[in-house]
């Protein structure tokens, strides 16, 4: 309970500091207090002055941040300057799309990585291990945007790009863990005593390596969300990755700031979730 409270307090601190930094970035960005509308020659002097007045309250960073925080607490995350829609509405609309694409990609990536690592370790064939390692190295050297373009060209599902981005990282970690686990003395003894490979895997290998593997779960979520930016932008998927790209191209900083804070919170929550699950698994195995 104490640990959970500590995690929650840390998350709150990170949101506040992250929000402050992000809001400061927005405030200090060149052209912050200038609006394109002010250049409209059809507007009267009073209208331009009213537009300037509307921006004037945000000139002081402290007031700007308090204003931002106060609105955020009420659930108002501001309005996107490029899409002219409330950020909250955009997030509610786009987040489920990314969750589906990234979720499917993560599942496929993890499944492939763990299965290939298991086969490569259990088969104990140098060639198989070499081919799998080489494959992982090639995917590790390919930018996610290139994979996305190749998949667009081949008309393949976009979530598989995320799977291929996640695969090499999970595979190399899983392979090393499994190799270490299979070389441990108690497993060699179990083999010598005639225990079957399936029983060894289920009773001796997975409970130990599983908890350590869970540590990568949080990181892989962060990798998948990062890969979602090029994947969704290039494959035309209306998720938060595409939204971030559109916001970057339109220099829509309020939207980008909220997206960055949101993705940071998701990453932190997954990291801590996997940490707690790993601890439970370790305690169960002990």
């Amino acid at each position, binding site marked *: 309970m104490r640990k959970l409270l500590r995690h929650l307090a840390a998350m709150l601190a990170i949101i506040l500091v992250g929000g402050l930094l992000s809001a400061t970035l927005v405030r200090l960005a060149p052209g912050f207090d200038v609006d394109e509308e002010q250049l409209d020659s059809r507007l009267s002097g009073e209208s331009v002055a009213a537009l300037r007045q509307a921006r004037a309250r945000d000139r002081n960073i402290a007031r700007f941040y308090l204003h931002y925080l106060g609105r955020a607490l009420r659930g108002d995350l501001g309005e996107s300057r490029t899409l002219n829609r409330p950020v909250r509405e955009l997030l509610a609309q786009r987040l489920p799309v990314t969750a589906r694409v990234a979720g499917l990609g993560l599942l496929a990536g993890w499944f492939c990585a763990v299965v290939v690592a298991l086969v490569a370790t259990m088969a104990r064939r140098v060639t198989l291990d070499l081919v799998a390692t080489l494959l992982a190295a090639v995917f590790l*050297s390919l930018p996610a945007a290139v994979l996305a373009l190749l998949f667009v060209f081949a008309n393949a599902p976009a979530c598989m790009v995320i799977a291929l981005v996640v695969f090499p990282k999970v595979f190399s970690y899983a392979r090393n863990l499994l190799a270490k686990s299979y070389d441990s003395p108690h497993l060699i003894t179990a083999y010598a005593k005639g225990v079957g490979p399936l029983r060894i895997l289920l009773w001796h290998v997975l409970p130990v390596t599983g908890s350590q593997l869970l540590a990568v779960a949080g990181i892989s979520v962060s990798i998948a969300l990062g890969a979602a*930016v090029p994947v969704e932008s290039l494959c035309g998927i209306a998720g938060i990755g595409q939204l971030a790209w559109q916001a970057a*191209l339109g220099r829509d900083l309020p939207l980008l700031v909220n997206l*960055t804070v949101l993705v940071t919170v998701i990453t*932190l929550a997954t990291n801590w979730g996997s940490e707690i699950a790993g601890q439970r698994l370790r305690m169960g195995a002990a």
Partner: protein
Amino acid sequence: MRRIRQLAWLLLGVVALSSLGAGLWAPADYAMQFREAPNSPPSHEHLLGTDDLGRDRFSRVLYGTRISLLMAPLAALLSTLLATLVGGVAGYLGGWCERAAMGATDLFLSMPWLFLLLAVRAMLPLNVAPTTSVAVTFLLLGVLGWAASARVLCAGVRGLRNSEFVLQARASGLHGWRLLAVHVLPNLKPVLLAQFWIAIPVFIITEANLGILGLGVSEPLPSWGSLLREMESFASFGFEAWKLVPLVLLVLVVSSFQIVLSRDEVAA
């Protein structure tokens, strides 16, 4: 494995030398247009054909490689220096200073890299001169990429802080920056080198991602990112093997860096 590592070094050397001498052996300037021959296949005049604007692809690959291969190590150097400053000072001073610095590092690490890059990149003007876009892109990579290395370096300095030779140096009257610079940091050289090598392929790949998304080096200057952007036109102009040369080169170079750094990591 030793043979593979030698091959990786050889490949990196050949690619670096050929790109550095781009001005000598590139048949044309990277921006020169052959308007009578857009999208032409490989020929004697254009070894890798031309792009849709009629620019010699071979020349652009040479110049683009030069930009990516020169700027990524510079950005890696900047990020390693920043990491040394943050991690080194935090690990050396310890206490609240270390906790505060590592808290900031954790905050940085918890922000997804590409989202953070996009947010900071969007803060700066997008419509800038090509040379400025190169500087902005790689400067951002260098400035934002220090966090993971700072954590490793902080742990390294913390480990050395109470070692016997540092205690002896302290007893001899050496303190502060001098102790850090003369005794602590030189002992972390393998760690620093490993962090530097690790950052290079990461920055090359990130620049490629940014370039393809139109947020990296701007036209007409080529970089691997902007060269790979040509893949977007595969669906309309068709797929030809020679258009994949920048991609093959990128994969070979990044893989070579990974092979080379695996040794440095072991050494660290």
